[in-house]
């Protein structure tokens, strides 16, 4: 599971903005705009079990675009959606030995975090990440 999340993070970062898995590390001053990739069940990515090579699984996750203005958060989330699910709803991630699909589920919310200074604007999408063992014939 961790490999797939790392691949998602790396892919998002090709947009030139930092992406964090789960949370912004403590004592880190986050950039003005960034992505947060979180598990919808609230678990921390570091706590995910290591999956066996033969297992297939689905994981609900959320991508937050965080910015200084609503326009920034919305625009950067749209950029991520265009990159990650270019077919409108479905996209693929490259992970060795796995077939990984990212499915856009819905746009969830736009809101303001007033507990930080300056206030941060958040735009949030929900996705389903599916991973299955790759077909050995297709791998070779």
């Amino acid at each position, binding site marked *: 599971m961790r490999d797939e999340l790392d691949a998602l993070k790396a892919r998002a970062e090709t947009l030139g903005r930092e992406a964090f898995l789960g*949370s912004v590390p403590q004592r880190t001053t986050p950039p003005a705009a960034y992505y947060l990739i*979180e598990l919808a069940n609230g678990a921390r990515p570091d706590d995910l079990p290591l999956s066996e090579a033969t297992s297939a699984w689905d994981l609900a996750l*959320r991508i937050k675009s965080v910015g200084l203005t609503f326009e920034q958060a919305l625009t950067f989330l749209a950029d991520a959606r265009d990159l990650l699910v270019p077919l409108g709803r479905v996209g693929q991630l490259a992970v060795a030995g796995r077939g990984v699909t990212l499915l856009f589920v819905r746009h969830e*919310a*736009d*809101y303001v975090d007033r*507990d*930080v200074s300056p206030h941060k604007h*958040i735009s*949030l999408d929900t996705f389903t990440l599916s991973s299955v063992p790759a077909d050995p014939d297709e791998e070779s």
Partner: protein
Amino acid sequence: MASVDDREIRAFARDLRGASQRVVDQVPGVIKKGAVEVKKQMVEEMGGSRSFKGAARSISFDILDGGFTAEIGPVSEPGEVPGDLAVIAYFGGSSGGGGTVPDPVGALNADAPRMEKALADILGGVL
């Protein structure tokens, strides 16, 4: 407002729109009753949170689309601090984590069987 995955119910309600006027007239009542139930559970869950109970009053619903759609969730407009607080309760803040109140989809899923049965009963009553 936050949204939930109610595509099957919405599709079913849409199908009913093509039915007889007698059926069409009864659907908005079912949708509204469902919205009231979902909102009630969401308010209870938010009110049960020590940190976010103040945001419970921001949860509301709008009936749209001639009564065939209900949009339920915290109202979050500029200056509506409780609404933003409620969304943070569901989805967490800008540093990650913090989403400690159950996802609204749980409230919808809890009421979905009742709504589906009510809509099916309407259809059954005219067949």
